[in-house]
C-alpha cells in the first residue's frame, strides 16, 4: 500500500516537474505574443484591433506555420532541419514549371509538392537516423542541393496563370460572426485564405499526434534521452527517421501553401524561411536540446514573429534589413533564455 502511494506520489511529482518545464516556456510565449499585440494596438493605432488584421497575419504565414510545425517535430527528437526553406523554393519552382510549361493541373502539382517533400524527408531521415550523421550537416547539404536544383530547373521567375490553380488560390473562406463594421455600418466578415485552413488542420493533426499517440510520446522520449528511450524498447532510429519524414512532408505542404499564396516560382522565394521556422519553434518553447516542445507554442511563436515583423514595417523601418535583424535578435534572446533555464535546471539537479 505504502509502496503504491509512494509510486503515485512520485508520478505526481514527476508530472508536475515536466509540466512546469514545458509550460513555463509556453506561458512565456503566449505572454510575449499578447504583450506584443497590445503594444501594436497601443502604438500603431486601430489597424491591429480589426480581426482582419489578425487573419492577414495568418494568411501571409500559413506556409511558415506548417514549416515550423515540421521543424518542431524534428527539434523535439533532438535534431534540426535547415533545408525546409530551400525545399519550399524548389517546390514552388517545380509546381510552377509543371503548371505553366508541362501542362499539368492542380492535382499533379500537389502530388509533385508532396513527392519532393517526402523524398527530402526520407533521404535526410535515412542519413541522420540510420547512418548517424549530424543532422545539421546533412540538412545543410540538402539545403544547398535544393538551392542548386531550383536554378537547374529554371533560373527565372515564372508566374502561374493556369485557371484551375488560380481559382483555388483565390478561394477565400468567409468567417461567421468574426469581422468588422465599415463606415456605413455594414458588417464585413473577415476572410481567410484556403491555405490557412490547411495549415490549421496540420497544426491540429500534429497536436493530436504529439499528445495522444504512441509515436508522439516516442518523439519526446527519444529527444529527452536517447539511451534510456532505447532501453525502454523504443526504436530510436525509426522514430528519428519518421520525424524527418514528417518534417519533409510538412516542407512539401508548406511549400505548396507558399506557392498558393505567391502564385509564382522564383529562385528567390522563401529565402531565410528555415531561419524563421527555427526561430518560431524556439520562440514557441521548443528546446534545442530536444525533448521539450509544443505545437501550440509553435503556433504562438509564428504569430509573435509575424506580429513583430508587422510592427517593424509599420514603424517605418521598412528598409529590407530591419526584419532580418529583428528576427535574429529575437532568436538570440530566446536562445539565451533557454540556456539560462537549462543551466538552472542542471543546478537544481545537483
Amino acid at each position: 500500500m505504502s509502496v503504491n502511494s509512494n509510486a503515485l506520489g512520485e508520478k505526481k511529482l514527476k508530472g508536475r516537474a515536466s509540466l512546469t518545464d514545458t509550460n513555463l516556456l509556453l506561458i512565456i510565449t503566449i505572454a510575449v505574443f499578447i504583450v506584443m499585440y497590445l503594444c501594436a494596438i497601443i502604438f500603431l493605432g486601430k489597424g491591429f484591433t480589426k480581426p482582419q488584421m489578425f487573419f492577414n497575419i495568418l494568411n501571409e504565414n500559413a506556409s511558415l506555420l506548417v514549416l515550423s510545425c515540421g521543424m518542431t517535430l524534428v527539434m523535439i527528437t533532438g535534431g534540426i532541419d535547415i533545408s525546409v526553406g530551400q525545399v519550399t523554393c524548389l517546390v514552388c519552382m517545380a509546381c510552377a514549371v509543371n503548371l505553366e510549361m508541362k501542362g499539368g493541373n492542380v492535382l499533379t502539382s500537389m502530388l509533385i509538392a508532396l513527392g519532393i517533400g517526402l523524398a527530402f524527408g526520407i533521404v535526410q531521415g535515412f542519413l541522420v537516423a540510420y547512418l548517424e550523421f549530424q543532422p545539421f550537416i546533412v540538412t545543410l547539404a540538402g539545403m544547398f542541393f535544393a538551392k542548386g536544383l531550383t536554378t537547374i530547373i529554371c533560373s527565372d521567375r515564372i508566374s502561374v496563370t493556369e485557371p484551375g490553380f488560380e481559382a483555388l488560390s483565390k478561394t477565400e473562406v468567409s468567417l461567421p460572426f468574426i469581422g468588422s463594421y465599415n463606415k456605413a455600418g455594414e458588417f464585413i466578415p473577415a476572410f481567410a485564405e484556403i491555405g490557412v485552413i490547411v495549415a490549421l488542420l496540420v497544426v491540429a493533426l500534429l497536436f493530436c499526434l504529439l499528445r495522444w499517440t504512441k509515436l508522439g510520446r516516442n518523439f519526446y522520449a527519444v529527444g529527452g534521452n536517447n539511451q534510456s528511450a532505447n532501453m525502454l524498447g523504443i526504436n530510436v532510429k525509426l522514430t528519428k527517421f519518421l520525424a524527418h519524414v514528417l518534417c519533409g512532408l510538412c516542407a512539401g505542404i508548406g511549400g505548396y501553401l507558399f506557392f498558393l499564396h505567391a502564385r509564382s516560382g522564383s529562385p528567390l522565394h522563401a529565402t531565410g524561411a528555415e531561419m524563421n521556422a527555427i526561430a518560431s519553434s524556439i520562440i514557441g518553447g521548443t528546446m534545442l536540446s530536444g525533448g521539450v516542445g509544443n505545437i501550440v507554442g509553435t503556433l504562438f511563436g509564428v504569430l509573435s514573429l509575424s506580429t513583430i515583423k508587422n510592427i517593424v514595417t509599420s514603424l517605418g523601418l521598412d528598409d529590407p534589413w530591419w526584419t532580418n535583424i529583428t528576427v535574429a535578435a529575437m532568436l538570440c534572446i530566446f536562445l539565451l533564455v533557454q540556456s539560462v533555464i537549462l543551466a538552472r535546471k542542471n543546478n537544481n539537479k545537483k
Partner: protein
Amino acid sequence: MTTSENELSSGNSAKGFFSKLVSNQLFIPLAALLLLVIFNLIADPTFFKISLEPSSTGYFILSGNLISIIDNASELAILAIGMTLVTSASGGQDISVGSAIAIAGSVVLRVVKGYSDGISGGEFAGIMIGAFLLCVAVSALFGAFNGALVAYFKIQPMVATLILFTAGRSIAAWINNNENISINDMRFGYFGNFLPAIPIPTPVFISALCMIIIAVVLKVTNLRLYSQAVGINASSSRLNGINPKTIKLLTFIILGVCVAVCGFIKVSRTSSITYAVIANNIEMDAILAVALGGNNLGGGKFNMTASILGAYVIQFLTTTLYKFKVSSSAISAYKAVVVILLIIMSAPIVRKWITDQKNKRAAARLRKEAA
C-alpha cells in the same frame, strides 16, 4: 588462435605501405586532386596552360586556369584555417562566415570611402591600414559573439551562428545604408588583384602569409594540443587545468580574424560590394574543405595541412565545373552531392562495415589456407 592472429597481422604488414598511405589524412584530398587533374587532362589538355600576358595596366601578369584556381582559393584556404580550429574545439561549424565576410567588406569600404577623397599617396596607405585594423576588430567582435554563445551559453555552434547567418548581410547593408559603394582609387585593388610589376596575384601572398603565421602559432604555442583536448573531452580537459570556454572563445575569435582578411581581399578584388552575393555559399565550401581534409566534424584531432589542401581541391572542382558551363548558382547542387558522398564515406558506421567485411574476408581466406 594465436597463430591465425599472427598471420593476420603479418598479412597486414606485407601490405603495410599501401594501408599506411590510405590511412594517411592527406590521402583523401590528394586522391581527389589527382582525380580532378586526370579528368581535366583527358577532357581538355589546354586546361593547365599558363601564359605571361600584358594586363590592362601594362604590366606582365601570369594567367591561366591554374593561376586562377590558386588565386581564387586564397579566401577559402584562409577560412579553412579558422574553421578547422573551431571544428576541432567546439565540435561544430560556423555557418555565418559568408555573412561575416559581407560585414567585414562593408566596414572596409565605408572607412576607405569616407576618408579617401583627395588624399595623397602616403595617407592612403594609412587609411588602408586603419580600415584593415577596424575590420579585424569588428570581425573579431562578431567572432567573440558567436564564441560566447557557444562557450558560455552552451548553444550548439551551428544554431548559435545561425543568428549571424541571417542578420549578417542585413547588418552589412545597414552599415553602408544599402548604397552600392565603389572605390575608384587603383591602389585599393592591389590586395585582391596584382601589385604593380609582380606577375603573381596578391591574395596568393596573403594566404601564404596566413599559413606561415598559423604554422608558427601551432608550432610555438599549445593551441593545437588544447583545442584538440577540449574537442575530445571538454570536462576532462577542464580537470587537467585547461579552460574549455576560453579555448572555444579563442578559436572563434581566430576565425573572426580569418574572416576579416577574407573580407578585405574580397572587396579589394572588385573595389565594390554586393551585399546579397558577396562570399555567397562560402560557408558550405569552408565546411567542405574541413571535411575533405579528413577531419572529424564532431571535433577533436585535426590536420591543418589537409584542410588547406581541401580548400584548393574545392576551388579546383569549382573551376572545373565552371569550365563545363555549369551556372554559378547550380554549382551548389553538385557540391552538396560531394558533401553527402564524403560524409557517407567518413561515417563511423560505414567504416566499421568496411573493416568488418575486410576482416571477414581475411578470416575466410585463412580458413581456406588452413584447410
